[in-house]
């Protein structure tokens, strides 16, 4: 990818969006048959699947907790999901992202209801264009709901950043690479509290506060789409029974 001269021209981003606009978003609940719950998210060119198994017996046994379910999370990129083929298997990036996704989801799950059991969340990135961790959280929250796991709230997530000195919502890969700052955020939409917050780059105080507010606004939009997806899933009786 070559660096474009400007990432924002006449107030429009290279893909035509305004600074505070999300990419086209599509969420489907119940995308897979074998998983206890699942969801498929497209956000711009991102294509992400999430699947949930559990609550189920937890192996290995020594990981079982007497007073709570253990939430486990695994984020993975398909080898063909990125420009240069990614070697299969976990790398340092995916290990860290798996951890922050788990910590972003854990506050909404009533883990105490299922002592000794495990709840597994798998996030598979099929096509990547920046923002896969937040798209993964968005998908995982829907998959948890689809699996019938008791939850306090959903979790909605999106990235914000700074590009050509402008605070923008939902960065593309190009904006992530050639912009100044990337900040993924996850929020419990009803309580309006933050469960994921990472940042790389540069923000002064005022920028940070504006960016955080914009992220929360973006999460609200994501939340509406999540609710719609779950409604669509349960309003139509599935053919397969």
């Amino acid at each position, binding site marked *: 990818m070559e660096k474009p001269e400007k990432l924002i021209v006449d107030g429009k981003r290279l893909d035509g969006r305004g600074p505070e606009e999300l990419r086209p978003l599509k969420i489907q609940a119940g995308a*897979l*048959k074998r998983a206890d719950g699942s969801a498929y998210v497209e956000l711009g060119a991102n294509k992400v699947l999430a699947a949930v*198994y559990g609550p189920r017996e937890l192996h290995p046994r020594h990981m079982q907790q007497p007073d709570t379910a253990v939430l486990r999370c695994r984020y993975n990129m398909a080898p063909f*999901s990125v420009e240069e083929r990614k070697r299969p298997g976990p790398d340092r990036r995916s290990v860290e992202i798996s951890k922050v996704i788990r910590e972003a989801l854990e506050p909404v799950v009533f883990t105490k209801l299922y002592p000794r059991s495990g709840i597994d969340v*798998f996030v*598979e990135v*099929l096509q990547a264009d920046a923002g896969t961790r937040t798209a993964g959280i968005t998908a995982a929250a829907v998959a948890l709901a689809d699996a019938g796991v008791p939850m306090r709230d959903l979790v909605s997530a999106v990235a914000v950043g700074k590009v050509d000195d402008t605070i923008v919502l939902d960065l593309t890969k190009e904006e992530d690479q050639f912009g100044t700052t990337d900040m993924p955020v996850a929020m419990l939409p009803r309580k309006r509290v933050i469960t994921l917050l990472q940042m790389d780059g540069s923000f002064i105080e005022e920028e940070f506060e504006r960016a955080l507010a914009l992220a929360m606004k973006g999460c609200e939009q994501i939340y509406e789409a999540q609710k719609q997806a779950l409604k669509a899933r349960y309003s139509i009786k599935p053919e397969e029974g």
Partner: protein
Amino acid sequence: MYEIISSVKRDYIADLARQEKRADARALDQYREVSVETGLIKSAQGSALVKIGNTQVLAGVKLERVEPFPDTPNSGVLMVNAELRPLASPTFEAGPPDENSIELARVVDRGIRESESIDLDKLGITPGKEVWAVYIDLHVLDYDGNLIDAASLAAIAALWNVKKPQVEGWTLDEFPVLKKPVAVTVVKIGEKLMVDPSLDEENVMDARLTISTLEDGSICAMQKGGVWCLTVEEIKAAYGLARAKAAELREHLK
């Protein structure tokens, strides 16, 4: 790939087979619904999502410049990798490829390699220095039986989807894919043979035989699996089924 199944279910499926019936009302020589969608993944040079019933396999083809093997200094390199992702089944575990995913990748690989479906000799760049590597990654998304057929079909569909790849330094006209080998897996339950086993059927099968054939009906690869035996007659019958069904599946590659 074999899952725990209650003995009740086992007996039920075996009983049905004895009556030449199946739990989902199919005929013994009938596939579940098959669909092939290509080109879904823009970050791959070729891609295909194959569904056979609930089973879903996504194949992506990536082309990269690599050093050739010393004994074939001007030929491209074919690499097939299969990932039984844990989201696809409660029995798939995270971690390095196990014997089932390795067998899957190697059976798909042989079907393509031995039929010379890709003209690797056209994929040299600088003799002895650089050639094209063709990576086929098979990503299993949902597992309800018969992965070999689904993965094989996804691989060949993804290869035919490459066409004129958008990759730096590509100079050929078309991606040199030549043939359409199709794998058909026949399983034996009791005395009966049937195609396209569902997961439940795989779990009770005595043996399976996968036969990859070309348009002319010739065999390019075979793989027997399972812990029981096949008679010569059963093998011949399986070959007949494989040829007939390959023709049907090949329709999805048009």
